[in-house]
């Protein structure tokens, strides 16, 4: 079986940049990606897309062209990354026709990206409530509008492209509500000309579509009988507690909500990579100046080692590509990384998550959607001695279901007051027959219970 020099996991901005750089240095590279098409969440696109819905499309087409020089293993979901010489990636391919396969490589570059971070609020599990990224994926990936009457809520600059995407797809957007009030004087956008232009473009688009943009506001509840019918929006104090008397309802069929992003760290944990605190204080893979993790022959790039957006992802991906091929990176790349990191830290500081969201919860608000665990049971578990998300899981089933706490993990960690622990030995569901098929040792049932 082929043993690659380098396997890059993820075909988003970081993974593509890593693959391009490593392949250009002569390495035999595989890009292992769960999606059918390259691009990750950022460059998600439709087949035959002309890029008109995308920023940085030219950068993407250049990176995509680099895939010609690597083995692009699309549709490969890694359920476990096993460290070794070589490392082994245990993958699943297909869906109704799912089958297992493995990819082996001497070196790994983790560019596993991030998913939306959600905060719970009453009614957040009603159909029609989507993550911001989910609404964006319908538009960018399928050209579909998430709904006819939409509201966008959460925090961070990402809400803007989500709102303009919804509007472009034909939805009437009744408002963008950012819970923070970022101070315009310290807004770091100005330090990055590309972002300033991007921001100006979104501002113009909001105006063009007559979309109200409100800071210091949040959707604190969603209502509906079996599906979303309206949301309650309230003005917040500095700590995100609703100001009495400011609540009003907006009729809508769609809510796109997101409070930042959570990196996907399962594979890094499988490989034994140490974690550290990212720009916002939540766990990320720890890397050194060369993007090397603490695990032998494993590098990380992009959101895996700190949520900082596509530009930082491309820069760190390229740096990992240099390091994994034993090459020295150009100094200009190191300077760009330093600048982008400062920017990421400033963005994280300008758009934090404040504690007051907990006051949006009622006793019966679900925290864990999979196991349907209400807030009251989470509080009981904390009172009974749970001190972190594992304790919450054991005493209340929070995070015990199919998503393994990916959706509720951040909120659960905030409620219990300890960081998330992304310990998920099985990163993707795998059928027992497929797992068993890889069992190489013969099974010899022993005769009887006596030894």
């Amino acid at each position: 079986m082929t043993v690659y020099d380098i396997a890059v996991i993820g075909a988003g901005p970081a993974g593509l940049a890593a693959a391009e750089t490593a392949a250009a240095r002569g390495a035999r590279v595989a890009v292992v990606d769960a999606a059918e098409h390259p691009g990750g969440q950022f460059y998600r696109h439709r087949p035959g897309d002309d890029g008109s819905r995308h920023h940085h499309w030219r950068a993407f087409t250049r990176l995509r062209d680099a895939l010609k020089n690597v083995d692009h293993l699309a549709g490969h979901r890694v359920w476990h990354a096993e460290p070794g010489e070589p490392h082994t990636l245990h993958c699943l391919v297909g869906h109704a026709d799912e089958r297992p396969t493995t990819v082996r490589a001497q070196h790994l570059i983790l560019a596993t990206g991030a998913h939306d971070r959600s905060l719970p609020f009453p009614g957040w599990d009603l159909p029609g409530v989507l993550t911001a990224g989910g609404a964006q994926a319908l538009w960018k990936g399928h050209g579909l509008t998430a709904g006819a009457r939409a509201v966008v809520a959460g925090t961070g600059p990402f809400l803007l492209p989500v709102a303009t995407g919804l509007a472009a797809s034909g939805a009437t957007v009744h408002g963008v509500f950012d819970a923070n009030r970022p101070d315009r004087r310290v807004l770091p956008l100005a330090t990055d000309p590309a972002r300033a232009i991007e921001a100006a473009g979104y501002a113009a688009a909001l105006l063009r579509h007559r979309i109200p943009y409100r800071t210091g506001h949040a959707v604190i509840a969603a209502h509906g009988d079996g599906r979303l019918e309206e949301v309650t929006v309230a003005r917040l104090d500095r700590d995100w507690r609703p100001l009495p008397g400011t609540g009003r309802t907006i009729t809508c069929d769609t809510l796109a909500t997101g409070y930042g992003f959570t990196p996907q760290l399962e594979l890094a944990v499988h490989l034994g990579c140490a974690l550290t605190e990212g720009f916002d204080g939540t766990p990320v893979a720890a890397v050194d100046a060369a993007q090397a993790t603490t695990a032998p022959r494993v590098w990380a790039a992009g959101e895996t080692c700190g949520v900082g957006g596509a530009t930082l992802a491309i820069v760190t991906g390229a740096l990992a590509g240099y390091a994994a091929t034993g090459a020295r990176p150009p100094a200009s790349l190191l300077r760009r990384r330093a600048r982008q990191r400062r920017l990421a830290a400033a963005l994280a500081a300008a758009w934090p998550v404040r504690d007051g969201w907990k006051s949006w919860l009622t006793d019966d608000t679900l925290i864990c959607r999979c196991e349907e665990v209400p807030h009251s049971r989470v509080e009981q578990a904390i009172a009974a001695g749970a001190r972190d998300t594992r304790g919450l899981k054991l005493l209340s089933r929070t995070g015990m279901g199919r998503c393994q706490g990916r959706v509720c993990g951040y909120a659960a960690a905030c409620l219990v007051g300890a960081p998330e622990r992304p310990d998920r030995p099985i990163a993707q569901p795998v059928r027992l027959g497929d797992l068993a098929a890889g069992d190489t040792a013969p099974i010899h049932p022993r005769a009887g219970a006596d030894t």
Partner: protein
Amino acid sequence: MVKPLGGADVVVVGAGIVGAAVAYECATAGLTVAVVERDQVSGGTTGAGEGNLLVSDKEPGPELDLALLSLRRWREWAETLDTDIEYEPKGGLVVASTAAALASLTALAEGQRAAGVETAAVADPRTLEPHLRDGTAGAVHYPQDSQVMPSLAAAELLRRPGITVHTGLTLTGLTLTGGKITAAVTDAGTIPTGAVVNAAGTWAAEVAARCGSELPVAPRRGFVLVTEPLPRMIRHKVYSADYVANVAAGTAGLETSPVVEGTAAGPVLIGASRERVGFDKTVSVPVLRRLAAQAVELFPFLTDVQVMRAYRGFRPYTPDHLPIIGADETVGGLWHACGHEGAGVGLAAATGLLVAQGLTGGKPALDTAAFRPGRFGRPVEEAHA
């Protein structure tokens, strides 16, 4: 920093199921109890267990007697505790694949029956488990085998009045006066007390050392696969007759045997593996594959069922596979309640009872000689392997 915390008649080290049971029974006997836990309630092996209360996997002898006593106590707890601890007397079904295995199993069951275990030979196990594979040699049904949710049970036991739980606190040593305990020393202050119970499970050797004693308790790693939630397809705890042999084996190498059970919540739990690799948390893909292969062989319908997650735990292993229950033979006031390997939940209730009886000078409910901490002699080679 040595600031006094509130004093207690007894300090229990460890808030797993054994520590919780000891604390509960001591409080029931009228003692005031402080529980010192360096992590959180059920944070160790209790949180990694399935919560089995088994008599079926124990050969006649002191451990089976302990299990039977414990089972009775668990039944009382399930009836009297305020919170639902998900007690389910679902019964065990031990399946033999060959005629020879069935003969051994039948002989074992006869001995167990003489010791007070309810057993029933089952010619066609599929009458009890319709989805079991065809062509087994036969099975024995153990209706007493039960299950609880161990984390909930520990938390509920610890809520009893008279118990103070200190989580995030580590026992660092003891204060002795004239060879007898006068205080338990923790990283956040001392707790004046005359008795300390080491219920630190897999970490009991470390706690014993901090108390100036020595115990041969070592970790024996196990993995569990958890499937997606299913309608109730598997009603009993179903395992192969090989399992008993695996438990009894003392090898450091990997031992696996199929143990499969449905749960009220939906997921099917699949074990069991045993290997002595220290506290290595690394996931072993070959072990996961082996567990899957054995489960699918037992229940072919599982082939298409998804494993949703997996976890590992470290059982507190002792060289003779018996728990350590009783007073330390050198440090006055130090007691041990640990080393239950994979049976800690099942044996916890009786363990708590025996320790409470010992501490209050009562007559023990059964002969505890086999569980004596001093039985291993010194020096201990195995414990630090």
